[in-house]
C-alpha cells in the first residue's frame, strides 16, 4: 500500500511541475480573458449575462472568477495564474477520487495508483486545465463524486448529497444535464427515490440560478441555453479542414445547419441510450456512453469536451483511453498551433511563426479524423455486450426499434451536409 501511495504522490508531483510551468508561462488570452471580464462585470454590479457570448455558462463559476479577482488584487498575483489553480486542484482531487473508487472496486493498490495517474498525467487534462484554463475538471470532479456517493450503499446521507452535488455540477457547466436521465433511471430504485433525486437536483440548480434570473430573465436564459458550442473538434473539424482547401477559409459556412441537425440526432440517440440503460447497475458506463455519443454525433465541440470521458473511462479501466488520449493530443496540437498558439504555448507562442500557419491545418485535419474515429470505436466497444436486445420486453423492443430508425433517419441531413461540403471543397 505504501508503494502505491508513493507512486501516486510521485505522479501528482510530476504533473504539478508540468502544470506549473504551463500555468506560469501562460498568458491572459482566450477564455481566461473572458473570465476576467465577466468577473469584473459582476464585481461592478452588472449581470455578466447582459454581454452576449462573454459568459455562456451557468452562473456558479462567475463567483469563483470574482473571488479570484479579489484574491489576485489582495495577493498581487496574475489573474490568469490564480484562475487556473482551481481546475488543476480539481484534477488532483479527481486523481485521488479515482484511486478511492478503484480501491472500493477491489482493485489492487499499485494498479489503482497507476490507473489514477493516467488521469493526472494525461496531456488532455494538463492542456485543458493548465494551458487553456478551462474549468471542465471542476465539473467532472463533482460528477464523479456524485456517482461515487450514489453508488455507495453504506452511507444513507449519500443519497441526499449525490443529487445536490450533481445540481452544483450543472450550475458550473450544463454538460452533466445530459447524463441526468441516466442518474434518474439507474439501478433498481423506487419511483419516489428517483423523484426525490430529480427534485433535489432541480432545487439546487434553481437556487443558484434565481438571482440572475431575477436580474435579467431573458439575457440569462439566452446566454446559457442559446450557446450551442463551436465546430472546433470532432467531425465538424475534419470538414472545416477540407473546406480550408478551397481558399484558406477557416470558418465552415454550413456550421449552423450542422449544429441544428446534429442536435436532433444526439437527442434521439441519447433517448435511445437512456431507454436501453434504464435499470442497469453500471451508472458510470451509462454516463460514459452518453458523453461518447455526444462527442461522436454532435458537431459543436470545443477542446475541453474531450476531458469529460477520461475519468469515467479510467474508472472502468478501459485501455482504449490511451488511443483516445493520443488522438486527442494530436488534434489539440493541430487546433492550438493553427488557431490559437498563444493558448498552448503562452509567452513562447511566436516560435511557431504566428497564427494560421497552413502546415498545422494538416495536423488539425488528421488529428481530428483520428480523434473522431477513436471516439466512435470507443463508443461501439463500450456499447457492445452492454445491451441485450433479446432480454427487453416486447413493448420496449418496439420503442427501441422506433428510436433506432428515427436516429438513423436524423443522420440523413447531416450526411447531406457532409456530401455538400465535400462537393463544394472541389469547386
Amino acid at each position, binding site marked *: 500500500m505504501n508503494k502505491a501511495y508513493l507512486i501516486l504522490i510521485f505522479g501528482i508531483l510530476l504533473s504539478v511541475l508540468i502544470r506549473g510551468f504551463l500555468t506560469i508561462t501562460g498568458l491572459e488570452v482566450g477564455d481566461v480573458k473572458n473570465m476576467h471580464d465577466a468577473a469584473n462585470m459582476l464585481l461592478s454590479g452588472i449581470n455578466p449575462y447582459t454581454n452576449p457570448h462573454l459568459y455562456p455558462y451557468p452562473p456558479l463559476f462567475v463567483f469563483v472568477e470574482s473571488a479570484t479577482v479579489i484574491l489576485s488584487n489582495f495577493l498581487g498575483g496574475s489573474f490568469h495564474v490564480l484562475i487556473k489553480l482551481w481546475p488543476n486542484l480539481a484534477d488532483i482531487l479527481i486523481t485521488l477520487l479515482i484511486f478511492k473508487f478503484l480501491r472500493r472496486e477491489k482493485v489492487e493498490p499499485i494498479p489503482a495508483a497507476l490507473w489514477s495517474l493516467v488521469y493526472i498525467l494525461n496531456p488532455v487534462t494538463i492542456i485543458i486545465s493548465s494551458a487553456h484554463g478551462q474549468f471542465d475538471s471542476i465539473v467532472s470532479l463533482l460528477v464523479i463524486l456524485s456517482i461515487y456517493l450514489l453508488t455507495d450503499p453504506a452511507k444513507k446521507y449519500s443519497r441526499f448529497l449525490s443529487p445536490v452535488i450533481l445540481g452544483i455540477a450543472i450550475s458550473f457547466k450544463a454538460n452533466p444535464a445530459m447524463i441526468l436521465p441516466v442518474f434518474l433511471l439507474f439501478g433498481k430504485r423506487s419511483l419516489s427515490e428517483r423523484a426525490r433525486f430529480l427534485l433535489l437536483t432541480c432545487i439546487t440548480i434553481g437556487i443558484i440560478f434565481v438571482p440572475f434570473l431575477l436580474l435579467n430573465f431573458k439575457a440569462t436564459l439566452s446566454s446559457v441555453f442559446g450557446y450551442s458550442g463551436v465546430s472546433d473538434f470532432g467531425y465538424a473539424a475534419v470538414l472545416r479542414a477540407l473546406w480550408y*482547401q478551397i*481558399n*484558406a477559409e477557416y470558418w465552415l459556412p454550413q456550421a449552423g445547419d450542422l449544429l441544428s441537425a446534429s442536435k436532433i440526432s444526439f437527442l434521439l440517440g441519447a433517448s435511445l441510450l437512456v431507454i436501453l440503460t434504464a435499470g442497469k447497475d453500471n451508472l458510470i458506463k451509462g454516463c460514459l456512453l452518453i458523453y461518447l455519443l455526444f462527442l461522436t454525433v454532435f458537431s459543436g465541440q470545443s477542446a475541453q469536451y474531450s476531458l469529460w470521458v477520461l475519468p469515467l473511462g479510467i474508472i472502468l479501466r478501459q485501455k482504449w483511453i490511451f488511443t483516445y488520449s493520443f488522438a486527442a493530443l494530436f488534434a489539440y496540437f493541430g487546433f492550438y498551433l493553427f488557431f490559437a498558439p498563444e493558448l498552448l504555448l503562452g509567452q513562447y507562442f511566436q516560435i511557431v511563426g504566428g497564427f494560421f500557419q*497552413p502546415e498545422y491545418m*494538416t495536423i488539425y485535419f488528421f488529428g481530428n479524423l483520428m480523434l473522431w474515429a477513436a471516439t466512435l470505436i470507443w463508443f461501439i466497444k463500450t456499447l457492445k455486450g452492454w445491451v441485450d436486445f433479446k432480454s427487453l420486453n416486447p413493448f420496449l423492443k418496439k420503442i427501441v426499434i422506433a428510436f433506432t430508425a428515427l436516429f438513423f433517419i436524423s443522420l440523413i441531413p447531416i450526411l447531406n451536409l457532409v456530401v455538400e461540403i465535400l462537393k463544394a*471543397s472541389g469547386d
Partner: protein
Amino acid sequence: MKCFKKGVVLTLFLVFFLPTAVFAKDYLNLSELNSLGFTNYESINSNSLLYPFKKIQEKIFRVPDNQIFETRFRELVFIANKRKTGFLGEAVGSYISITGKMIEQQDQDIKNGAQTKIKILEKLRDGYPANSLPWIQIQQALDTTERLI
C-alpha cells in the same frame, strides 16, 4: 472487409484528389495554358492538406533546386489560375524564394525557360483587377522571374 477497404480508398481519393482535379473553376483552361508553353499542374498543391508531406518528401529525397523551381512554378500557376487567392501569398513566397536561389546559380536551362514563365505569369496577372492584392502578388513573382534573364 474488402468492401470496407474499397470504401476507404474511394473516400480518400474523392477527398484529396477530386478537389484539385475536376471541379475547380479555372481562369484559363489547360489547353490555353499549354499554348503558352505550360506543361501540367502538380497533383498536390499548396492548398492541399497533403502539401506538408510533399515538402518533407522533397527534403528527404534531396530533390535538386531546378526541379523544385519548376514544381513551385506549376503550383503557383495552379493557385493563381484556380483563384485560390487565400493561398496565393504562400505560393508566391515559395516561388520567389527558390527563384532567388536560381538567380544565384545562373543555370542556362532555367534562363531559357524564363521567357515562357513570364508570358504565363503576365496572362495570369491580367486575370485579376489591376493593383488588387493578387495582381500585386503575381507581379512580384513576375519581377523576380525577369531577374533570371
